[in-house]
């Protein structure tokens, strides 16, 4: 620990456990056509975790304003659609809450259209909905957004292809290996079976992408509620030792 950074001896640091196999989708997934030219063909090389990897950005402050978690709040009128509360906890795989972590979300409006110049889907834009939110997890790793139920929308991947309703989530966790971008889906969506992006995930892991309806967190005469916990990699039990150099 007392070694000077330039002597070459690193401090003992506890790294982050690899995700178990059958967690993430493969980079090459022919059912999702756009992966064809966008996946590395060479095997990934193992990057030993050093100080660069066991640290990561601590974000917040001027990036997040107090109302950024409420996507229904920032225009003169309410957006079209069913209001929902999306809430949950950010945890590591040891069950420890991850506080003070930036969570960013983005989504389509109730008609399934994104406020984006590239979205040509012939559904109306909603002048009262931007589809973007941010928040910081609290000391217990909890977060909450207020938004509207996004719509499904067609896309060009295959004949009659539709994306199930989803909300994009971006989280940082505490360290570089925990960085994750994922999508939250809604229970019982009839479009799951034909969606290659959802089905790229190993079957046993797919339920982890589906939120849970929460009657207890609904607000009477106002909003439905869905719970979505996000679990990031946990830490190795012990710091690794300085290996001998040959």
């Amino acid at each position, binding site marked *: 620990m007392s070694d000077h*950074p330039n002597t070459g001896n*690193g401090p003992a640091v506890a790294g982050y456990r690899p995700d178990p196999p059958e967690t993430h989708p493969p980079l090459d997934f022919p059912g999702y056509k756009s992966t*064809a030219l966008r996946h590395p063909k060479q095997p990934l090389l193992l990057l030993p975790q050093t100080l*660069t990897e066991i640290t*990561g950005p601590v974000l917040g402050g001027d990036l997040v304003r107090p109302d950024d978690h409420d996507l229904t709040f920032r225009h003169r009128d309410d957006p079209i659609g069913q209001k929902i509360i999306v809430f949950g906890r950010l945890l590591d795989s040891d069950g420890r809450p991850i506080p003070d972590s930036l969570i960013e979300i983005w989504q389509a409006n109730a008609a399934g259209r994104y406020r*984006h110049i590239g979205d040509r889907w012939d559904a109306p834009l909603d002048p009262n909905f931007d589809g973007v939110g941010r928040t910081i997890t609290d000391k217990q790793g909890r977060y909450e957004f207020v938004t509207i139920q996004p719509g499904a929308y067609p896309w060009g991947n295959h004949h009659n292809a539709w994306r199930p309703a989803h909300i994009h989530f971006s989280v940082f966790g505490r360290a570089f290996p925990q960085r994750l971008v994922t999508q939250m889906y809604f229970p019982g969506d009839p479009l799951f079976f034909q969606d290659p992006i959802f089905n790229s995930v190993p079957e046993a892991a797919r339920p982890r992408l589906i939120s849970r309806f929460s009657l207890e967190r609904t607000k009477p005469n106002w909003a439905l509620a869905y719970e979505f916990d996000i679990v*990031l990699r946990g830490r190795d039990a012990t710091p690794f030792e300085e290996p001998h150099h040959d």
Partner: protein
Amino acid sequence: MTEQLPTTPSQTVGPYLHIGLDWDRYGRFVVPEGTAGSFRIHGEVFDGAGQRIPDALIETWQADPDGRFDHPDDPRGRVPGFRGFGRSDTRLGEYSLHTVHPGVVPGPRGAQAPHLDVSVFARGMLHRVVTRLYFPENEAANAADPVLSSVPVHRRSTLIATAEPGGYRFDVHLQGDGETVFFDV
């Protein structure tokens, strides 16, 4: 060993990542404009057909000029105020970041040459990929760097930026000729 919670799978950022991940100019400034010694790193992201990708996102993470991080897990103590993080999309054809040279970072296999950790996200990528950026002028340090040394010699150049007036160029090739080395972190 106690029971572990199953981790959440990754999904693509999709084509409309700019809605949620756009920090406008703020994201591009790892250090404030005008910081002494600061420079620009920019580059393009290419697919396997050699086409420039306009819906990718680059994120960088680096030490400060002394090789330290503003993070509670840096055992040498935090360096308050050095964010160390950059984010830029490729809507305009390339990404662009404004930063300073990171210092030497200690590692379990010896001193590491100055480097940036780089994440690449894009439509068509179901999981981010990770690479590293090294600087061309640090020839001796790069030769001794434990990570760079672990890369086959003929592929090392994909991890070394090119010097140019005002900074550096660092292109990412997801596939094909000159495919960038990506790491499993």
